[in-house]
């Protein structure tokens, strides 16, 4: 033996998990570039650059090893622009990324130590400080200037109309699936995001229970309590396809550090997040409630893990006792 313990070898590592997410994020960026032009890609590169600088500064301050083999900050940096409109000013994006890493991630110890989802924190910060820029969207297929501020006419999203108690007039169901509606530049491409979810579930990067139970809870609540006078199935469609609900379920809900470690805990966590998201959407101040609900539910994850561990310990003990009784008899 030449290396220090532990000698456990596993195929999956922190690096492979983040690389899987990066691969699918590139697909989402491809669609964003298709709808909004090169500005979408430049926003991603800029965000990654800011995250890289923050990483270096924070690691130097914390006396941690600086390495290029760890990509969790890059994932955070690439997720944040996709939650924002393509017209977002670069300064706001930089503020969101800096907040996500310098306030939400590194004070808790950095990689693997953060209690709250950094991307959700960064988005929440930007939404609270700059709501006018964060919730005003350019029209899809409009070519935006790569640099400089957006001079065109901004529009509101379907989530805003729902929040105001109206019925969105965003075209047909197929347009919503393809992402040809105003909204966050990465979150409106529902088909692509669902394909990403499939890939991540097959690769084992995301546990299926999280997104499925979360979306089922949101759909159930939308069907039971529509926010506008419309049939239940329409309410489900608009609630799920508007805002960042599905994108968040794929890329933020099941972040390995801030989600429960076992499937049973994951189910409970997903249901709680779903309920909180719908409550935030109905009673909150902003049209988008998922990041706030996620931050709130992140605080309960250690409790879910503890309860889950105690439950499994009891089950194991019961099985052991029954097997011993069988042997004795």
């Amino acid at each position, binding site marked *: 033996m030449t290396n220090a313990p532990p000698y456990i070898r596993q195929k999956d590592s922190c690096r492979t998990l983040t690389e899987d997410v990066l691969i699918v994020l590139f697909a989402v960026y491809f669609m964003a570039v298709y709808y909004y032009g090169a500005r979408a890609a430049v926003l991603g590169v800029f965000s990654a650059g800011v995250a890289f600088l923050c990483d270096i500064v924070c690691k130097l301050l914390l006396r941690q090893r600086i390495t290029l083999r760890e990509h969790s900050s890059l994932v955070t940096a690439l997720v944040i622009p996709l939650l924002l409109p393509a017209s977002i000013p670069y300064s706001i994006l930089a503020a969101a990324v800096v907040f996500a890493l310098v306030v939400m991630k590194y*004070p808790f110890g950095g990689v693997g130590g953060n209690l709250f989802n950094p991307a959700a924190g960064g988005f929440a910060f930007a939404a*609270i400080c700059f709501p006018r820029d964060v919730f005003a969207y350019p029209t899809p297929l409009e070519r935006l200037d790569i640099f400089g501020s957006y001079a065109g006419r901004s529009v509101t999203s379907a989530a805003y109309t729902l929040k105001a108690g109206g019925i969105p007039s965003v075209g047909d169901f197929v347009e919503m699936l393809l992402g040809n509606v105003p909204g966050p530049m990465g979150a409106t491409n529902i088909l692509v995001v669902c394909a990403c979810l499939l890939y991540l579930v097959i690769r084992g990067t995301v546990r299926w229970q999280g997104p499925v139970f979360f979306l089922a809870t949101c759909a159930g609540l939308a069907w039971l309590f529509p926010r506008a006078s419309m049939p239940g199935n329409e309410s489900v469609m608009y609630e799920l396809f508007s805002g960042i609900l599905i994108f968040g379920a794929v890329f933020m809900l099941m972040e390995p550090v801030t989600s429960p470690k076992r499937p049973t805990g994951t189910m409970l966590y997903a249901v709680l997040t779903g309920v909180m998201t719908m409550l935030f959407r109905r009673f909150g101040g902003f049209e988008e409630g998922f990041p706030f609900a996620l931050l709130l539910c992140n605080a309960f994850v250690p409790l879910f893990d503890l309860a889950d561990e105690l439950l499994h310990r009891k089950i194991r003990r019961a099985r052991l006792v029954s097997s011993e009784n069988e042997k004795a008899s």
Partner: protein
Amino acid sequence: MFLLKTRKHHNRVRRLPGLITENPVLALGLALPFVIAASYSLRAALCVFTGMVVATLPTVLLASLTGSRLPAFIRTPVYALCAMALLLPAEALLTAHFPVILDSLGVYFPVLAVNTLLMHLCEKEELWGHPLAALRRTGLALAGFGAVMGIVACVRELFGAGTLWGMPVSWISWRIDALLFPFGGLIVIAFLAAGCRAIGRLLRGALYQSDQRLQRDMLRDAAHPPRPDGVDGTPISK
């Protein structure tokens, strides 16, 4: 271990409990809701700090005089009643000067009568029967509370609202609205606490290193004492 400077520093700092060590807000987490709720502006911070001083100082003095004589079950209600009686005129006085601030503070001003800092100091048994020590200890704790409150209020008002004591600051061209929310206050306090800890650790580290150097010099001198005059051909001094 040779810790001359470290011990000297420790003894010096220990004389100011509450202000430097054991800060009630940063180290003990006492009266945290008041700092978060009231530190959105310097004026609100001043109002709460005044209320805190008026309620805490005489009540702790009373506790130091009567603490051991009162049964345990009656002590806390007596302290709360005393603080309430003191807060009523203070509120009337402050309302005359800052009516909007007092209105916006809402329940946070009356609740000062049962704040955790007050109860913590009143129940310190080592202060019972020593009114002067109680006054000194309370004064230092209140100074620590006021210092934290002032710093947090300055940061939040300056960068959150772009003003200081209600007056606009010209060189602030951007604002971080989130600082005016309660979570903004929590984040500022958290960074302040972390910063204070880091500074303390750096200072202690520097003193320890200095002690180590001093010890090395002393050991070297002991191992190789200066040679007397005239040995090995050194000239005899006259």
